[in-house]
């Protein structure tokens, strides 16, 4: 009789703890996944950023050209590659990183005080860089 009561008590006591542990596990997975995504985003975004850096150097060494004119030249000479690296990749990066931040935000108990959102600053940086690439491409 005593043993049965104890088991019932134990089950009641551990249920909230199990839920909390599951929630913490999900949050930790979401943060790790978001960080993985930020690394992949950084590698893919480094390609258009490298091209922009090279075209900026070209415009500095050739005074008759500007970064915008060089981007226009790139668009006409490499239409598929420029569309991929300057439009499709940044848009995908914005979508995936926003999704990750939103997921961590929704899993955080108290998002305003939580450090979990602050740990995703690289994802925010990737979104900002993607917007800059899109603006430069659209000029």
């Amino acid at each position, binding site marked *: 009789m005593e043993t049965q009561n104890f088991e019932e008590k134990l089950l009641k006591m551990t249920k909230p703890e199990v839920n909390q542990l599951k929630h913490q596990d999900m949050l930790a997975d*979401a943060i790790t*996944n978001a960080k993985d995504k930020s*690394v*992949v985003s950084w590698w893919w975004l*480094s390609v258009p950023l490298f091209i922009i850096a090279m075209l900026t150097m070209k415009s500095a060494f050739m005074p008759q050209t500007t970064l915008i004119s060089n981007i226009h030249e790139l668009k006409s000479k490499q239409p598929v590659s420029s569309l991929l690296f300057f439009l499709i990749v940044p848009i995908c990066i914005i979508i995936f990183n926003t999704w990750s931040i939103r997921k961590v935000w929704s899993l955080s108990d108290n998002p305003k005080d939580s450090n979990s959102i602050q740990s995703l600053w690289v994802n925010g940086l990737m979104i900002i860089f993607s917007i800059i690439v899109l603006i430069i491409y659209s000029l």
Partner: protein
Amino acid sequence: MKLNWFKREGIFFLPTSIVGWLILVAGIAFAVYSFIDIDSRSHSSSDTLINFVFMLLIIGAVYSLIAYFTSRTPKG
């Protein structure tokens, strides 16, 4: 299916299995081949380096994408 070929360390994905190591070695071999190919066609060392760094970034981007989908972190 959960694959465990890579684990992330900073901004790099390190191999944790034989398949992962094979992918890394293939990537390095392709980078070396690209360097030799670019160097044979370029006119100066800066020309070689600019084109090789661009190719290296593309190889790194493809490698990181493969590693992301085959690392042990649950995707979602």
